[in-house]
């Protein structure tokens, strides 16, 4: 036995190595972890530079948590050197980290002001090309927060025309957001001018000029927003402003068209759904399904158990009623993002922990839309519950029968 334990003292190198010991619970090889880590960095020991900069990062984060802005700034001073890291991967990731932490500090630090923040933002924007849009957007929001609308709008305009950097999907989304906020700002300016206009008399010499100005603004806004709302997403606040503008100019048809196109994501819609459900007309039934899906697009409604209950029941009813096409219509535009948005493994665990009833309803919907193999459904199925156990079993049967993924469906 004594010889055996000696052999277990694995290979020993210059690096930090601890022995392995046969503990009661099994074998323990702490030195193995170090090896695994060194494989990732090519077998070389981690440099002190890497160690101290990551310690510095922890100190900054700790200081931020404790609202110790002075300390955070001190550590930040030293953290800037990661921009010159010889490790190219870390060097590329540095600007974003520095922006996030630095902007946080500058937002709260008593000695900081808008000018300091703006200088910092302008500097960080121009390090590399990857961060320009994101920082511009956040910078604009900061300026908005401080009531500097003109500067914010200028920022957004500059950012809108940014053409460098890769054409990734996130870049597209950022540009949309930038345009949206710009549109909103333009709407706000329009709204203010409209107020001015309403105070003026028609005969006032300035009236025409102001009216023209107002019209120009509205044109710009409408150009922005009309393009935007064609892109899938939840644009409610922007839509409202757009519609108001259209209405003002007497374009009721235009306004109506928008309102019909877009399904608002609001709880009131659930009531609307109930009404639709009770109606006789088939097109209302179809709309009812649309409305439900629309509500659950909204991040604020993800935990709304009523919405899920309705959707679960209604989906089953729709599928039983042989309206697979309706479901497929709605699902097609959502199947790329709903699984991660609603039905990830993380949500399964967290929903079950918080509210088992909600989890059940969601699981049912998941099963119907994604099939019995999906993560969410399987997780819930595995859970043991006294009350809901039977319901879950029934759910399983229905899913087997009606899931749209099910090849047995006769269509």
């Amino acid at each position, binding site marked *: 036995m*004594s010889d055996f334990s*000696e052999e277990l*003292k694995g*290979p*020993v190198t*210059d690096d*930090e*190595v*601890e*022995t392995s*010991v046969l503990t009661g619970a099994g074998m323990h090889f702490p030195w193995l972890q170090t090896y695994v880590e060194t494989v990732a960095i090519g077998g070389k*020991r981690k*440099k*002190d*530079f890497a160690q*101290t900069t990551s*310690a*510095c990062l*922890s*100190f900054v984060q700790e200081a931020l948590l404790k609202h110790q*802005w*002075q300390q955070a*700034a*001190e*550590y*930040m*001073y*030293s953290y*800037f*050197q990661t*921009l*010159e890291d*010889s490790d190219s991967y870390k060097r590329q990731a540095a600007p974003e980290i*520095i922006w996030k932490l*630095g902007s946080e*500090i500058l937002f709260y*630090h008593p*000695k*900081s002001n808008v000018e*300091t923040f703006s*200088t*910092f933002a302008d*500097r960080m924007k121009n*390090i590399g090309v990857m961060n320009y849009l994101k920082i511009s957007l956040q910078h604009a929001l900061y300026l908005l927060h401080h009531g500097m609308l003109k500067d914010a709008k200028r920022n957004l305009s500059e950012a809108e025309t940014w053409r460098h950097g890769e054409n990734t999907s996130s870049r597209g989304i950022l540009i949309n957001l930038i345009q949206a906020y710009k549109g909103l700002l333009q709407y706000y300016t329009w709204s203010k001018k409209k107020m001015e206009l309403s105070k003026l008399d028609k005969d006032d010499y300035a009236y025409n000029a102001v009216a023209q100005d107002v019209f120009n603004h509205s044109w710009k806004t409408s150009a922005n927003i009309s393009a935007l709302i064609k892109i899938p997403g939840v644009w409610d606040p922007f839509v409202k402003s757009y519609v108001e503008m259209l209405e003002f100019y007497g374009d009721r048809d235009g306004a109506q068209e928008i309102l019909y196109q877009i399904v608002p994501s609001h709880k009131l819609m659930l009531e609307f759904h109930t009404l639709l459900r009770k109606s006789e007309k088939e097109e209302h039934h179809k709309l009812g399904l649309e409305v439900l899906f629309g509500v659950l697009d909204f991040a604020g409604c993800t935990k709304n158990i009523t919405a899920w209950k309705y959707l679960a029941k209604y989906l089953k009813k729709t599928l039983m009623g042989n309206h697979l096409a309706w479901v497929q219509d709605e699902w097609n535009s959502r199947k790329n993002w709903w699984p991660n948005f609603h039905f990830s493994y993380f949500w399964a665990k967290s929903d079950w922990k918080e509210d088992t009833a909600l989890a059940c309803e969601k699981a049912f919907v998941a099963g119907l839309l994604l099939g019995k193999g999906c993560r969410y459904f399987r997780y819930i199925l595995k859970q043991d519950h006294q009350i809901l156990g039977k319901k879950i079993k029934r759910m399983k049967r229905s899913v087997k029968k009606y899931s749209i993924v099910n090849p047995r469906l006769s269509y």
Partner: protein
Amino acid sequence: MDLEEAEEFKERCSQCAAVSWGLTDEGKYYCTSCHNVTERSQEVINTDLIPNTQIKALNRGLKKKNNSEKGWDWYVCEGFQNILCQQAEALKNLGIGPELKNDVLHNFWKRYLQKSKQAYCKNPVYTTGRKPTVLEDNLSHSDWASEPELLSDVSCPPFLESGAESQSDIHTRKPFPISKASQSETSVCSGSLDGVEYSQRKEKGIVKMTVPQTLAFCYLSLLWQREAITLSDLLRFVEEDHIPYINAFQHFPEQMKLYGRDRGIFGIESWPDYEDIYKKTIEVGTFLDLPRFPDITEDCYLHPNILCMKYLMEVNLPDEMHNLTCHVVKMTGMGEVDFLTFDPIAKMAKTVKYDVQAVAIIVVVLKLLFLLDDNLEWSLSNLAEKHNEKNKKDKPWFDFRKWYQIMKKAFDEKKQKWEEARAKYLWKSEKPLYYSFVDKPVAYKKREMVVNLQKQFSTLVDSTATAGKKSPSSFQFNWTEEDTDRTCFHGHSLQGVLKEKGQSLLTKNSLYWLSTQKFCRCYCTHVTTYEESNYSLSYQFILNLFSFLLRIKTSLLHEEVSLVEKKLFEKKYSVTKKKSRSKKARRH
């Protein structure tokens, strides 16, 4: 036109048959009597390789077109020489005598160059068509004058304080050709002439120079002079920036450009590790074929008796413990001259870890007195406390618990500050290292960006908070009797843990546990390993405290403690050895 004579050119002038030559501004020979200009030009291309005293003269004659982009030509070993120079200067500023720089270190370095065939030898190692002919040299009468041409004097102030007697030798030197073609190839990849080649060089039996190795040279010199600086002190001074190491290349002359492969050679981004430098010290000592070093006797700072006293004071332990440490030193034979003195050529195990050994001895003594089994030390403390309360006028008995509380607090504070200082350490130098000329503007721009950002944030930081650079000190903890906030235990008595038996003193504690039961017999470098959870909390604390003091790994200290115990309890170990041997015999 220059009136200096170009002595190396010995031809007769075609017009006046005189042998009296000078150099034109373009570097061509011209006859000083009839001013006939020849087409022959001087072959020495680089003026920089000739010492200061001659530069004035030749510069006027032979102005090499100094491309500010490229700077001077320099070799990697010149860079190391410069760094060693800086380090020696720093040591001088710490109070070390100048002989270290001028004699000891200089000689070691020259010997290294000779052994590694980079200079002072018949065929120096430079490949790629560059074979300078250099005077053969003898280490015995080397002085600054016969420094090989390869080592440019201008890149480093002369080792000797006076370097003026060099002129006579200059004219006897032969110039050497440098093939220009190969220059342009290498200059793309490194600022130094041989940077690329150097990093690829892999000669068997030659110890290649690196930046950590400069510290090995420093330590060898310190050891030779038996100075009062241990290896851990040296490395701590490096960490605290009192000795150039990280970014030492920043202080190279402006014209010595570093880029490309030089980065890998000179751009260090880690602090030196004790074990690493220790190994290198032995490696270099052996490579240089050094003789036995001057003896470490009882009056040397590095002798365990003295070092133990130093460390006992530093961790606030009673002076009376010194008697015990001396006793252990005697019993284990660790105070013997032959044991302590470094002899690279001898085949015995090298033992130059004076600081670690001294501290290990203290740990053993603590174990002897207090057992450190998470039990006895606290009961003994209770006794001490009771006694001290009753006898307030006497010399207090040493109370382990009180000591632990005070020491732990001081240690935690110090460690926290140390970690914070490390997290804030600025690695990147003002002189950015770049890959190539193409990369240079990007690197400079980045640096500018960082500096601007730092400037902006420094306005947010309270300027009074940034403490000035600490002056270097041998002691990290200081304890005085007058300090009423923190008890000083130096004068406390060990009466509480010792008892008289006849004429001698015995420890009240009669037990002991060995840090290691079995030593590793395989070919690995470690004798034993340290798994924290197997040991008492007191022992862990003691190890952590001392390891922090020396900036070494706890496993290293633990190993040293085990080795001290092995010497001390030799009998015990040989008994167990016999037992296992007989077991084996039975099996077969």
